[in-house]
Structure formats: structure tokens, C-alpha cells
């Protein structure tokens, strides 16, 4: 996914349930772990992939390359399921 793409969720919604963060989609739900909740909270159709990585790098201790790899992997997995649209 390009660094200047502006992804947003499509046909899916992020919501909290107790201490879990869920991604709800047609006929299924995903319980999000690891970095996924923090990444998806920034996926709003206005931020670019680069801005999402920048924001996470500011707030987290992990190396920027690791963060970038996590962001791309998650967004591409969701795009394959049709749950991400590039604005």
C-alpha cells in the first residue's frame, strides 16, 4: 500500500467490548490484538499511511521499520478481505 494512500474502513466498524477491541464485519468479527487496535484507531480516511506510521512512531518505542511493517501487513490483510478502501 502506497505511503500517500489514505485508507479507511469499509463495511466494517471498530468497537470496544469490555477490555477487548473488536473489528466487526459482515458475518464475522475479529478480536484485535497486538498493535492492531492502535493502528486502526488512526485509519480514518484522512490520514495517509505515512502519517499513521509517523503518529505510531511518536507514541511507541518500537523501531519505525517494525511499525511500518505492522501497518502495511494489517492494512493489506484487511484490503484483501474488502474491509479497507483507499480514500
Amino acid at each position, binding site marked *: 500500500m502506497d505511503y500517500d494512500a489514505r485508507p479507511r474502513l469499509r*463495511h466494517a*466498524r471498530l468497537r470496544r*467490548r*469490555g*477490555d*477487548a477491541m473488536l473489528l*466487526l464485519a*459482515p458475518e464475522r*468479527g475479529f478480536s484485535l490484538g497486538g498493535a492492531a487496535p492502535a493502528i486502526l484507531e488512526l485509519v480514518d480516511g484522512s490520514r495517509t499511511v505515512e502519517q499513521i506510521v509517523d503518529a505510531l512512531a511518536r507514541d511507541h518505542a518500537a523501531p519505525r521499520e517494525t511499525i511500518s511493517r505492522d501497518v502495511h501487513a494489517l492494512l493489506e490483510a484487511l484490503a484483501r478481505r*474488502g474491509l479497507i478502501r483507499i480514500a
Partner: protein
Amino acid sequence: MSLEGPLTLVAELTYACPLRCAYCSNPLDWQSVLASLSTEDWSRVLREAAALGVVQLHLSGGEPLLRADLEELVGEARSLDLFVNLITSGVPATRERLCALRDAGLDAIQLSVQDARGVVGARIAGVDRHRQKLAVAAWTRELDLPLTLNCVLHRDNIDQVGELIALAQELGAHRLELANAQYLGWAHVNRAALLPSAAQIAEARAVVRAAQCDLEVLFVLPDLHADRPRACMGGWAKSYLIVAPDGMVLPCHAARDLPLEFWNARAQPLAAIWASSPGFLAFRGEAWMREPCRSCDERRRDFGGCRCQAFALTGDMHATDPACALAPAHRLVTLARSSQRARALRLR
């Protein structure tokens, strides 16, 4: 991270339906269930479900579009932050109605078709509405709602799985469910005429495996051809709540036929039913299991299979699901496989 308690509510808003499918999952005596929950009752059920932790709502039936208050219930569900899926035959529907439902907050539609060609509807459902269904699929996509296409497979349409995949792609569906009928209730009554042969199942599986498409395709075997039990409802009373049109609260659609005591949402709060209804407690967890399940590692994957199937085939709801090759009564399943006949169907 804990995901205790129910995640999904299936609200069966009515048992009435313009179609009369010979494999319908509603009870055989659906016409004797006269009382229907009011709009206020359903709204309360939705609020209680959300408070219990439910996040997914399937509006089902019968045909939920027959309820004039559907838009209102969709709106209520969305205000509770539920993900709202409409499970419909597409009859009766207009583009305007779908638009109103989307504007009320509907998230997704699951539309059933009887086959890919529109040739089995009259025999299987008593009426051919294939063209109407294609129109509903097109409106769904025009309104930018995600579409799941669902086809219940049986002997007369399972040879069309390749065409069904092509149809789903052509209609812009996001997901295709090719779910064989499970032989309970109406499908059990019509089993000799509906159950596909092992060769048909193998061929359909191969076609699905070989299909190259972006579409997510879910192929569900009939338990009777599986040799391993299905993880029915992801485990009894583990994550699903079903509320029937009269308010009866069940752990699965078919459980009504079991000799168990189920409570009604009109008389008891959902939280009390989930925690204490005898019907929910009967098979929750593993304590009820007998051998060979009790010491079998598979029990954590299949949760002991389907209680309704055990009851339908053996008369004992505690019996090992006969679908399992390890079950003492598995012979009932292998016999059923070889007892297919051309028979008149009994439509619901």
C-alpha cells in the same frame, strides 16, 4: 482479553415467509407459534442483548421484511452500536425499502437464492422468485451495502456450485455461503429426496477448491457426509442467543424441538436466561459429555457436535452426535447416505 458472554443475537422476527423451502430451519409446527413479540418487546430484547455484550445482530425469520417495524428495529440496534445484518429471501423487497433500511443504519445483507439458474425454486420453495432476488442483489450493491449470497445446497442444486460462484461474482457479492442443508426439522423430513450423494459432495468440493476468485467462499458440508461433527453454534450457549418470534430464547434455531425447558424473553430478562435457563445450562461446557467425547481431544474443537442431530437420529439428546465416525450410532448416518430416493418434497 476476555470475550465471555454472548456475542451474537439472532432475532427471528417472524416465522411467516412467502417461500416454503423444503429445508427451512424453522420448526415443523411454525404455524402453531401464534404470538409475536411487539416492537417494544423487540426493542427491549435488543437493549438487554447489547447490555450483555452482544455486538452482532442477525435479523432473520421467516422473512424479516414482512415486519413493518423493521426500519425502527434497525435504528434501535444501530443506536446500541450493534453490527446489523439482514438475512432475507428478498421477497417482498423494493429498492425504496432497502434504501430506508440502509438509512436507518443497516450494515449488511445476506440474500438467499435457491440456485444459480432459477430452475429449482418452484419445486424446492413452492414459488420461483429468482428474478426478484437478482434485482435485490443489484439494489444492495447500488446502495453500497455489502452482500453475502447464500445458497442452501442439496441434491438438486449442488451440481451448480461453479455457476453459483460465477453468479456471486457477477452480482458483486462480498461473500458466498454454499451451505449444505443440515438434516434437522424440515430437511430431516425431506432427507431421502434432498441429501446429495458422496460423489456429488466430492465434486462440489473440488470445484470450490479450484475456483480462482477474490470472493470469500464458505463451503459447508452436510454433517451426514462429514464423519466429524460440526462445531454447532460454536458450542452450546457459548456465544449465540436466538430469540424466536414468540420470545422463546434458544441456544440454536432447532433447539426448540428438544425436551428441554427454555425461558421466554417476555417473562425473564435475557441476562437471567443466559445465566440460568435450564435449556442453556443443559449442554454448556463439557460436564454433560459421555464417552467417546469426554476423553477425546476433538471435544475442544467440535464441542460435542449437534445435540439436535443426536436427538433427531437416536431419540437421545445426550447421545454422541451420530455424525462422528466414533459415535456408537454412526451407522444411522452411513445408512442415511445410501437411502436416497426420488421422492415428492413436503414443503413447509
